[in-house]
């Protein structure tokens, strides 16, 4: 019988030790002389259960196992072969109970259709799952306006954050009468806490390339760029291999599919600047300059890269295209709400049990995303807020958990859909500290062109820092609101216009916490160092000396079997004593 084994070797899998598991499988198959097709795939999205191994054969339905160690490999394969699989480690399986069956089945996978299933660097694997069929259909059976109409009808909106209708954007670029046009894929995923694009780039690079070729044909571009951040070395490697393979098969290059259509695709590595996610800044960066946004109009569709008409979409948007062309606009529009069609990929992270990548239809309530698909909270501590949209977004509190996921409903809360980062927070997160964290980020990443963004965010950061140090005053809250309004009005690009969102949403939903920091000098979550104090609980301390040995400033005194004492003047509040004490004898207040 033919045995097939797949191991997820994306960044998250590798960091969890998947390479050793792969080697263990290779060695075992060799040693036992078992004939099997051992494959490297990428991320299936269940990052919390890495390393992940999938085993299937003609005889038995596939079982996906999670949290596998190299030592467990022999038993896993042996039991599968004898038809008595070890289901305790199964996370997804068809024929038997598995831990994550429900969470997986509640997803709808369009963008992630191939992630974790195919070998991302094998074009043959992609071709086997109807890869490049949509391109063939576009070139042979559709004319350019028909493609654009199909995308318009599907209702697909830009997945980079702003949600501009993709078909309309293509129409604008198509309308321009110019021999030279460019198409760009924005893969500069800079939002901290978001990794949707990384997983698709690593796991299914051909789907993005195919989407770009179709887009290029539709708008009339003959050259394209994928602008990918350099922090994603594996994504860049997979893209390079994929582009070469597509060139060899004449899916890129001259006279594609024997038509007059030529298309050349390049990769540009970003050099680390968040503002380059903004389209005009991104183009300046490709041109080799400092990535600073410029005034629009003219829009990139009229005058973009090197002054030529240019269309920019993000990774997830492109990954939808081939599916829409192949299955039709109506099948896509079946999913979602009236104004937000299709599905959305989210990166679940933070204090959630199933952190990883999920794809759900638009219109699902946030509550279901967190508790059904995400498996609920990671610890006993209760839910406090979910941060959506990264530094441009905001914190959505528990009372708004029934908000549905669509562009307009999310915007109403004060957050934004953004690119899809969802960081779940529990009561151990301080909302003032989170606001300060994002402001610190946007202030660092402000390119400096607009005064309000450059100086305004700095002043806001100073105020927030003051509050987290217990030195805030009540007037500061008004100052924060005034500064926010002015920064939104006085900034040229999305970075500045949205920078105050994290502060505004936390002020709106968690004002009590700001007041507690200012008036009571208290940080309820126990995060803001100047406001917390570590002490030894005398009844619980057995004098094991673990804390004293680990204390970096030697602030803890006490002999073996005697109650210890923390010198408050020497304590730097690093919390190591709290973490290492096995007897819960350190209190944090």
């Amino acid at each position: 019988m033919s045995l097939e084994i797949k191991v997820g070797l994306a960044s998250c899998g590798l960091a969890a030790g998947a390479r050793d598991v792969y080697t263990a499988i290779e060695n075992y198959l060799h040693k036992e002389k078992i004939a099997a097709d051992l494959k490297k795939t990428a991320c299936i999205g269940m990052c919390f259960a890495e390393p992940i191994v999938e085993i299937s054969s003609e005889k038995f339905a596939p079982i996906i196992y999670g949290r596998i160690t190299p030592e467990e490999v022999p038993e896993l394969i042996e039991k599968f072969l004898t038809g008595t699989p070890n289901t305790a480690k199964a996370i997804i399986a068809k024929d038997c109970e598995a831990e994550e069956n429900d969470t997986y089945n509640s997803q709808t996978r369009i963008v992630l259709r191939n992630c974790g299933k195919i070998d991302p660097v094998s074009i043959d694997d992609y071709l086997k799952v109807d890869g490049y069929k949509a391109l063939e259909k576009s070139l042979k059976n559709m004319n350019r306006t028909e493609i654009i109409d199909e995308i318009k009808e599907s209702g697909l909106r830009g997945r980079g954050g702003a949600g501009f209708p993709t078909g309309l954007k293509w129409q604008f670029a198509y309308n321009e009468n110019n021999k030279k046009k460019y198409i760009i894929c924005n893969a500069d995923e800079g939002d901290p806490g978001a990794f949707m694009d990384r997983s698709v780039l690593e796991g299914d690079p051909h789907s993005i390339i195919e989407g770009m070729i179709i887009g290029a044909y539709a708008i009339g571009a003959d050259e394209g760029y994928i602008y990918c951040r350099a922090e994603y070395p594996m994504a860049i490697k997979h893209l390079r291999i994929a582009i070469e393979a597509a060139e060899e098969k004449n899916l890129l290059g001259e006279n594609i599919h024997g038509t007059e259509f030529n298309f050349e695709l390049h990769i540009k590595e970003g050099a680390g600047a968040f503002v380059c996610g903004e389209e005009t800044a991104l183009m300046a960066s490709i041109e080799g300059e400092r990535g600073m946004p410029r005034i629009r109009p003219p829009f990139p569709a009229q005058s973009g890269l090197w002054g030529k008409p240019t269309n920019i979409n993000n990774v997830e948007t492109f990954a939808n295209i081939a599916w829409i062309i192949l299955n039709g606009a109506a099948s896509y529009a079946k999913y979602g709400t009236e104004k937000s069609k299709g599905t959305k990929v989210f990166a679940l992270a933070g204090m959630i049990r199933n952190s990883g990548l999920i794809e759900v239809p638009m219109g699902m309530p946030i509550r279901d995303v967190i508790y059904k698909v995400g498996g609920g909270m990671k610890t006993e501590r209760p839910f406090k807020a979910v941060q959506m949209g990264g530094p441009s977004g905001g914190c959505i509190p528990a009372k708004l958990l029934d908000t549905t996921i669509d562009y307009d409903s999310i915007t109403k809360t004060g957050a934004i859909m953004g690119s899809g980062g969802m960081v779940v927070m529990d009561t151990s997160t301080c909302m003032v500290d989170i606001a300060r964290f994002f402001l610190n980020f946007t202030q660092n990443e402000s390119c400096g062109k607009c005064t309000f963004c450059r100086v305004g965010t700095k002043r806001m950061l100073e105020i927030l820092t003051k509050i987290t140090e217990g030195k805030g005053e009540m007037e500061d809250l008004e100052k924060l609101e005034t500064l926010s309004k002015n920064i939104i009005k006085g900034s040229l690009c999305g970075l500045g216009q949205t920078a105050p969102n994290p502060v505004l949403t936390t002020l709106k939903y968690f004002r009590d916490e700001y007041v507690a920091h200012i008036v009571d000098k208290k940080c309820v979550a126990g995060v803001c160092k100047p406001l917390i104090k570590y002490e030894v609980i005398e009844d619980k301390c057995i004098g094991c000396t673990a804390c004293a040995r680990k204390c970096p400033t030697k602030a803890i005194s006490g002999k073996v079997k005697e109650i210890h004492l923390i010198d408050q003047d020497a304590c730097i509040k690093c919390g190591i004593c709290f973490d290492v004490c096995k007897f819960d004898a350190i209190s944090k207040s």
Partner: protein
Amino acid sequence: MTNIQKEINYVIDKFIGKKGILIPLLQEIQDIERYLSKETMSFVAKRTGIKLAEIYGVATFYSMFRLKPQGEHIIRICKGTACHVSNANSIMDSLRNNLTFANSDEDTTTDGKFTLMEVACLGCCSLAPVIMVDEDTFGKLTSESIAKILKKYD
């Protein structure tokens, strides 16, 4: 001409005459010395005709370019949201406590072995808190596990 200049010349020859070259050019040149020295930037300006001010402007704009010599291994500490809520600050403290620096502003250890660098997000949020030593990612860290990781690079 020094060996380094020869290598730099070779890189420049590859790019010269093409459009939009400055960033990839500096990226490749940085790989040679692992940072961009003042001399190197002047040399690039002379050879390519790009103004030194423009080169310096680009080098200081993007966080990837480093203007000071680097340690043998670069430790990237993820400061993304998921890592932040998973107490990434204590990881930074632990790294600084386990290594020796001339002063608290210095990012490279006195023995030149490691350079610490904070980065916005490494995209491995499910494993938060995360650090990356050169090309290897380490996740689910505690202040305890740092010492073990550092030992691997001894």
